[in-house]
């Protein structure tokens, strides 16, 4: 095929765009690794932070992030998958409820994350937690009605919900109708068909979506500012009602609240690097699972 001048122009422009993006990414990651890597040590990863927040390590923030992510996954993912199964397998496409749920999911996905934080504060902490305190405790001091790792996790679960629902529904839809028909024609109930045929064949897609949603939730800071993340708390959370440190929030705190911002910079970069490694490894896991489930479908 002969290339005209316009073709070359377009190829050049798209090539430059690609180069710009790759360069930006390289500079960004390069900066973080360059400044962050020297700080990483066994001590940095396993120690509590010192009183100045710069010395010592970031172990409570790593622990808090992982703990919160687990709680968030446990709370949000089953609800999200169940909703997607309802939408894809049970609800008639014309049903009002299904339409309402879809509209809600789409709108939820477009809400800025700080609004989720306010929602968590208003709904979970003040309404749910406050009501629990009023009902079960005589103490004027709040027991449940205060920021904690539980409420932060639930808030993030709501934030990740739309992603889980949408990706799971997409994965369920890739299972051919013929397989459902074959199962039903053999006398399987709808539930058996979903459980034995649809879910196993959509497993890879569902897992990939879940992991991507979780890795997004793990790095979110805005929603947890009001809901349970602590500025400086050199203890590990042992109770659902405890506050906790979080890698993302720690970065924010180091950059804005630290007495000496310049001196905090190496710790800052180290923390960012750890957070990136954690979320990248989740994403990598998603990629591996997707590749493996694709391979499994081939004869």
């Amino acid at each position: 095929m002969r290339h005209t001048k316009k073709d070359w122009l377009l190829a050049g422009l798209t090539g430059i765009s690609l180069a710009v993006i790759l360069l930006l990414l390289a500079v960004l990651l390069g900066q973080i690794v360059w400044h962050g890597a020297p700080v990483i040590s066994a001590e940095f990863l396993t120690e509590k932070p010192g009183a100045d927040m710069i010395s010592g390590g970031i172990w409570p923030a790593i622990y808090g992030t992982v703990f919160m992510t687990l709680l968030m996954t446990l709370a949000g993912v089953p609800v999200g998958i169940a909703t997607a199964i309802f939408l894809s397998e049970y609800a008639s496409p014309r049903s009002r409820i299904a339409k309402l749920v879809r509209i809600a999911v789409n709108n939820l996905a477009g809400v800025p994350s700080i609004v989720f934080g306010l929602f968590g504060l208003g709904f979970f902490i003040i309404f749910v937690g406050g009501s629990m305190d009023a009902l079960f405790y005589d103490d004027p001091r709040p027991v449940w009605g205060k920021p904690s790792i539980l409420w932060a996790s639930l808030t993030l679960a709501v934030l990740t919900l739309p992603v889980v629902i949408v990706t799971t529904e997409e994965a369920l839809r890739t299972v051919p109708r013929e397989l459902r028909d074959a199962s039903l024609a053999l006398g399987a109930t709808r539930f058996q068909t979903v459980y034995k045929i649809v879910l196993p064949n959509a497993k890879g897609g569902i897992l990939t979506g879940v992991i991507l949603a979780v890795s997004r939730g793990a790095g979110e800071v805005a929603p947890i500012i009001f809901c349970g993340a602590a500025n400086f708390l050199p203890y590990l959370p042992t109770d659902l009602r405890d506050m906790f440190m979080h890698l993302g929030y720690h970065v924010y705190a180091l950059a804005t609240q630290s007495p000496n911002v310049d001196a905090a910079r190496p710790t800052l970069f180290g923390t960012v690097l750890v957070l990136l490694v954690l979320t990248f490894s989740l994403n990598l896991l998603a990629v591996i699972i997707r590749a493996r489930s694709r391979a499994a479908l081939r004869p």
Partner: protein
Amino acid sequence: MSESKEAVAETPVNVKMETQGVNVFYGDNHAIRNVDLDIADRSVTALIGPSGCGKSTYLRALNRMNDTIDSCRFEGRILLDGEDIYGRGVDPVEVRRRVGMVFQKSNPFPKSIFDNVAFGLRIGGEKDKDVIAERVEESLKGAALWDEVKDRLQSSALGLSGGQQQRLCIARCLAVWPEVILMDEPASALDPIATAKIEELIRELREQYTIVIVTHSMQQAARVSDSTAFFYMGELIEHGKTDMMFTRPTKKRTEEYISGRFG
């Protein structure tokens, strides 16, 4: 049954399924109009007619597969051994265990050959491994596939050829002991050799099962079926013994279709 009709039939025919005043609608589309049809036990009934005449829709009404389509509405009665399968309190899941189905496009599960055939037994609650293994072997033999796959039962069903996959689907259907087997153009995607194998299989299965087959090939209907029903625009135009239908049809439309003047 009157004396004269008995005299016409070579052997007394038992009716396995009886269709009475069946109407099927897709939304506003009246797809099947007032069909009455008796399906004889242990015989092959072919449903023929031009595309869109409703023969597949009618077939899917016989095991309530249309129930899974949202906009589909059914009127009338279909009796299986005298009992209305659309009657109140009848579980469509139970109906589908008695009336199995083989689809146009072979649709094996992305599982092993063994697990495909065992699927119906397992969801039916069968746990005994020996019983399952025995039934899988019987079913694969019944579908004339055993000799080709006995050494690789654990390999993926997706590795089989198209014709083998369709016979696997038949074996999967046989495994749950159906009484009636519905086949929706089972050979339309297969080459002539694989088609011949399926047709031979249908003739064998007829000894034990009642078979209803939709086909767009009149030669196939003539080769495999005992009786033939001709559908046109959602109506049953004519139903009779296959050799009569193809040599002396009573209705003009049937004759025109069979002689290839339309369709």
